[in-house]
């Protein structure tokens, strides 16, 4: 059971905390620069194919015989996008049957997504949760607003299973290009993407998203309990890699993982992306309550 009774109670408490926090801080203070579908007029622009015909200003069309789209001022409800990487590489770590410490990455990501979504719903934000698999999002929850959707969110998340490969870069790009309201975007992934993720994230940034990367890694990936002559099999591609692992090489790997995280962090810092390295042996509610707040993701 992914979301048992205790977890749900924790989520409730989180939502409570979040709504209190958001209620005082956000009201009237934050004015979006984004344009949307409110009733307050902002500007016109030329019609391009695919635009909603309902938003064509027929009066202007009658006068100028050219279709214009009426652009309106965005309302101050925040769009929250939670993107969960559901590739096979996320299906890693000790499951619930393994004993005390559960370090399974995808389950961790599911809980984290639930927590973030819960908070967003509770705060009255517009929540979209997408599951990334292959080169595009395969499942989507929302956009939804309001606490009433919390149970549905949980069910949606529970239904997801990690499978296949994820071309993270492409999936992010496809998602960003979709006509959506930009807002906060949380990417929950292990970032094991040989093709990179930079251009995908760039698409988000260029569309005005505020991007946070929650880099989920299992402790087994930081310090692999391996030794000897091994044939490592890639969980996603099945690609083998022969290796003779001894103490020296393990040390080197440990240093290399940390360096990799530093590398990502440096990249994110440069682009004002919030980077949170997450190790799955850290309790997820603690992560949400303390670490994410410290970093300003939750106020």
């Amino acid at each position, binding site marked *: 059971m992914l979301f048992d009774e205790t977890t749900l109670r924790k989520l409730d408490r989180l939502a409570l905390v979040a709504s209190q926090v958001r209620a005082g801080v956000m009201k009237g203070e934050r004015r979006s620069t984004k344009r949307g579908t409110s009733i307050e007029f902002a500007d016109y622009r030329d019609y391009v194919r695919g635009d909603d015909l309902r938003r064509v200003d027929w009066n202007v069309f009658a006068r100028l015989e050219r279709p214009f789209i009426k652009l309106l001022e965005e309302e101050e409800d925040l769009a929250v996008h939670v993107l969960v990487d559901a590739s096979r590489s996320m*299906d890693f770590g000790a499951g619930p049957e393994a004993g005390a410490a559960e370090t399974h990455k995808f389950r961790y990501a599911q809980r984290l997504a639930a927590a973030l979504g819960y908070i967003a719903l509770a705060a009255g934000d517009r929540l979209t949760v997408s599951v990334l698999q292959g080169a595009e999002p395969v499942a989507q929850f929302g956009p939804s607003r309001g606490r009433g959707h919390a149970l549905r969110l949980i069910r949606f998340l529970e239904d997801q299973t990690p499978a296949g490969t994820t071309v993270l870069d492409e999936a992010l790009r496809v998602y960003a290009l979709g006509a959506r309201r930009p807002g906060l975007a949380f990417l929950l992934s*292990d970032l094991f993407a040989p093709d990179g993720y930079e251009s995908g994230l760039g698409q988000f940034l260029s569309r005005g998203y505020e991007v946070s990367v929650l880099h989920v890694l299992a402790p087994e990936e930081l310090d692999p309990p391996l*030794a000897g*002559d091994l044939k490592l099999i890639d969980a996603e591609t099945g690609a083998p890699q022969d290796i003779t692992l*001894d103490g020296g090489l393990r040390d080197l790997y440990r240093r*290399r993982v940390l360096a990799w995280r530093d590398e990502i962090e440096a990249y994110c810092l440069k682009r004002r992306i919030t980077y949170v390295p997450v190790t799955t042996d850290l309790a997820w509610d603690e992560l949400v309550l303390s670490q994410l707040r410290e970093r300003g993701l939750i106020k």
Partner: protein
Amino acid sequence: MSFLAPLALALSALALPILVLYMLKLRRREVEVSSVMLWQKLLRDREANAPWQRLRRNLLLLLQLLLLALLVVALARPFLRVPVVASGAVIILLDASASMQATDIAPSRFEAARAAVRQLIDGLTAGSRMTLIRVGLQPEVLAAGADDKETLRAALARAEAAPTPADWEAAFALAAGAVRGARLDESIVVIVSDGGLPDDLPPLPGEIRYVPVGAVADNVAVAALSVRPAPGGPQLFARVANYGDGDRTVIVSILQGGQLFSAQQLDVPAGGSADLVLADLPDAASVYAARLSAPDADEAAGLDALPLDDTAWAVYQPPTSGRALVISPGNLFLEQMLTALPGLQPFRLLPGAAPPDEAFDLYVLDSVTQTAALPEAELLWVNPLSSTLFTVGEVFTNTQLRRVAPDDPLTRYLDWGAVHILQARRVEVPTWARVLVEAEGGPLVFAGETGGRRVAVITFRLQDSDLPLQLAFPVLMSNLIEYLAPAQAFSAPDGLRPGQTLTIKPHGGDRAIAIDDPDGERFQAAATEAGVLFTDSDKLGVYTVVSNQAVLGAFAVNLFDPAESAIRPQLNIRVGRAEVGATPQAEIGQFEIWPWIAAAAFVILLIEWWTYHRGATLPALPGWRGLFKRKKSAA
């Protein structure tokens, strides 16, 4: 350590393909990881030295390389040079002749040879069999095809040298038989000797090795000693031979009956000899000994290396003649014949006359009626009229020859065909006697032993036949007298060589013969008609023959063998057409150690197999991991 097949070491190049194959195919544990992305990046840095990383600490590969190394070394057939090692069928010919008793190598050459053979036994490889032949006068197989070293050592310990020459031809025949009987591909005949082998030995199958023993050639020997009757008295002749490289001066002491009789100094040139003659010796039976000694009395080391031939013995027996008493009314033929026979001195007595008091060796009764008890002596009875020994019957005239006993020493050379007899007396042949000549009417000549005396009977008057005119008469008389009154119990005027046999014929009543050898050991023998064949003459010295507590005589056994006295060690021997050189002991054997290396390789193979199935590499050994875990938990 050296190699018999060093080219095989080139096979160690096989290590290269093993290394290559090993790098190509390493058995790896498959582990699923979330992504190999990081690992690939990691390995890219270490690609350059990665193969050597793989090799490092890899037990399997190390074992395989070790296995290869061992196999290659084993194929190269390494060997150790050990003093004496032989394998396969090993036939040892151990010289046990007189010259092997030379003491130029302490304690003796034979002991040195024994030590060499013991080393051979110690070095005997597994699966090899050894035949041990002691080469003496009669070669003797001490151990035949034995593979048990204890048996061989015990057999070797039994072997002793004898003062006899060696019969190498018989030994070679035994060795050849042993080689054929061994049925092993490899056979080595090792001759342990000081040389002195005859030059015309037949070739032997198998490889022949020769281990010479002996160091010096110096030896002076009594080459001959004899005492012969001469007109003025017996004459003693001695010859001293020098087989060494330098001229020698020796003192020859002649002892008579154990007492010093004469001593002379003789100069003996190198390789030559010197003679000594003593004339006019006392004409009595006596034992003479000739003993060589060094002129310098302080020379404690002795005269030479072989003391065996420094003393010789001779027995002088004055010629004897048996005394015969002929009781006869007068028989010219008989008297003349007895006078003519050698070794017999006849005396004549008329029938009825009182016999003289002295005893005679032989009584000849001619046409006599027995009146008194017969004397305790041999009897020749011609034409008996009455007797207590047998029943005398009527005269018969049917004297046609029926048969002459064949294969009897008493009828040897006897041709009865031309003999004619007028009449003879019918005598019932007693059970103790055998018929020599038989006519149709009854026996003509018979002989036998009764009451401790030998008796021969001719049943007709010589005057009633033409026998005295025939050639058969001296032949018959000679045979009978030889039977009744043998001149001596045995004849060995020149003594014997060791191992020679002697026939001893005791006098009529003497059934038990005893012979005392030089050490005082007594041999008992029961004499048959043909006498006693004495064969235990393998000690040097004087043997005494005793019968009925009386000494019959004595004979001497001397070495007198130039081949044995010439103790110069031979460096080469000739076998068949091949010259076999001396094999220095240090190089006689090559102890191959490849079986041990192959065994080690097998063990390594087992370990490798075990390791493979454990899938072990050093750090991943479960035992080790457990060890670390325990340590951690303890901490």
